């Protein structure tokens, strides 16, 4: 080591150290999102923005370093008494941003604490002016009202409150239980009302349907009755026509034709009785003789019809003899009926009862046609037998 001459060099070294320290102290790099306040002899002069800044050495120094970003303050839980004397626990969160570093640094001491207390007291006053039910359903309004008041209050501090949000509102447990019960009851009520309405609608619909079906059934019956009546009319007409035809036939022909019909029916009825599957023994009535008499009468008719010549009693009027009067025909019919009367039930010609005539007739033939056919077939007989009828 070679010793130095430190006489002059010592000043140079001291100057070097001084310059070094000054440069380190005067050059300030401010990071993005921060502002530094500068004080000259303790008095605020300017604000350093993000970037490289140089302070006047010894005269100026950095006063406060302020975060200019939006910041979050957690508002702790506090008890609030509502207007209807319910005690609820509420907490929240506040967002704020320093917009003016100088005011935030020098207008207020402990900015965060100041904002926090301001928020808490205002939450208390706003919530205290509301009922519990309002409180729970109007959070947005609470937020807005608190925000307005606090924002106006912090304006002189160069701070903007961007949001105040109530996080939780917790009513006491008993109140919560009661609210749950109330909610449940409300829903049950709605459910019951809905059910009742449904039942009502169903009952109405059902009654409506029944009414409709009854109306339709009645209409059906009415229609059917009309048709029935029409049918009966038609039947009666046909009956009348048939009677007319028969009576005309009788009037124009012989009473023997009637006899023939009656006899035919009679025999048919006997055959039916004999053929009945549930009755093997045929008990003939006392008036068997009369029946047999009628058979004898039929035999007589047949003999007369097929003998080819006129009866012995009176000559048959050829072509057009004197016609029998209606009175005479009536009497003749009565006589036949009296002769053939028996306990055996008389088979009346009826649409519903199948008789021997129907059985012989091909299906599809109407009653009138049948009568006409039978009448026509028997006309020849009637014409020939008219003379004998008069004798009886």
């Amino acid at each position: 080591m070679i010793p130095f001459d430190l006489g002059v060099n010592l000043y140079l070294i001291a100057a070097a150290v001084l310059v070094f320290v000054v440069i380190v102290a005067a050059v300030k790099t401010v990071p993005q999102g921060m502002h530094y306040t500068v004080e000259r002899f303790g008095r605020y002069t300017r604000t350093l923005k993000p970037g490289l800044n140089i302070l006047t050495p010894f005269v100026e120094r950095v006063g406060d370093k302020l975060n200019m970003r939006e910041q979050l303050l957690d508002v702790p839980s506090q008890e609030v008494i509502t207007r209807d004397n319910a005690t609820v626990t509420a907490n929240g969160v506040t967002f704020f941003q320093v917009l003016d570093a100088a005011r935030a640094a020098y207008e207020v001491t402990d900015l965060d604490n100041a904002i926090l207390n301001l928020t808490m007291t205002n939450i208390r006053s706003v919530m205290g002016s509301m009922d519990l039910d309002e409180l729970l359903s109007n959070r947005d309004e609470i937020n807005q009202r608190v925000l307005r008041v606090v924002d106006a209050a912090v304006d002189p501090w160069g701070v903007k409150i961007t949001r105040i949000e109530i996080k939780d509102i917790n009513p006491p447990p008993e109140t919560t239980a009661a609210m749950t019960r109330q909610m449940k009851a409300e829903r049950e009520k709605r459910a019951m009302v809905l059910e009742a309405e449904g039942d009502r609608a169903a009952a109405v619909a059902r009654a409506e349907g029944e009414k409709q079906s009854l109306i339709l059934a009645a209409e059906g019956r009415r229609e059917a009755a009309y048709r029935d009546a029409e049918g009966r009319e038609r039947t009666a007409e046909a009956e009348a026509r048939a009677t007319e035809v028969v009576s005309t036939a009788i009037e124009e022909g012989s009473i023997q034709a009637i006899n023939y019909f009656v006899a035919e029916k009679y025999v048919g009825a006997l055959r039916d009785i004999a053929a009945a599957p549930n009755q093997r023994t045929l008990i003939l009535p006392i008036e068997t003789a009369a029946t047999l008499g009628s058979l004898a009468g039929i035999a007589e008719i047949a003999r007369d019809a097929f003998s080819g010549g006129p009866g012995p009693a009176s000559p048959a009027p050829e072509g057009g003899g004197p016609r029998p009067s209606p009175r005479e025909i009536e009497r003749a019919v009565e006589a036949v009926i009296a002769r053939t009367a028996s306990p055996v039930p008389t088979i009346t010609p009826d649409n519903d009862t199948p008789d021997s005539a129907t059985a012989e007739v091909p299906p599809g033939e109407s009653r009138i046609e049948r009568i006409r056919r039978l009448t026509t077939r028997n006309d020849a007989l009637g014409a020939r037998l008219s003379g004998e009828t008069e004798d009886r």
Partner: protein
Amino acid sequence: MIVFLAILRDLGPYVWFIVGALFLIAEVMLPGVNLIWFGVAASATGLVDLAVPLGWELQMVCFLAISAISVVAARMITMRSISTGTEEVNRGPSSMIGRELALADPIVNGTGRALFADSTWRVAGADQPAGTRVRVVGIDASTLVVEPVER
């Protein structure tokens, strides 16, 4: 210091390069301290000494002078970049100048509130009913100076 000066005298300009490198390393490693100026100045002094051999006193003066000059030069360069408007984030409400807002509350006695960014801002201006559209023309801390939009 004496040891440093002795080394300086014995090793010549290369000492300045070593010192400059140490300053730059420290600049990167240590947060919140600005040593880049000294690193730059030491390296520059080494170059000067290499070109024109100086006495150690002059070398020291050269080093301190370059340090001061580099700081001032850097400051001037950054000032120019700020004035050209590279600052894009965290500009605060100054970014709202020229924007049209709707009044949430009427302006009464010169102050009201306007809707912006799902919050409300204090506005100052001529009295207007709520719902009026206004344009921000200036900023006063957290209060926006507005005037009605001409239709």
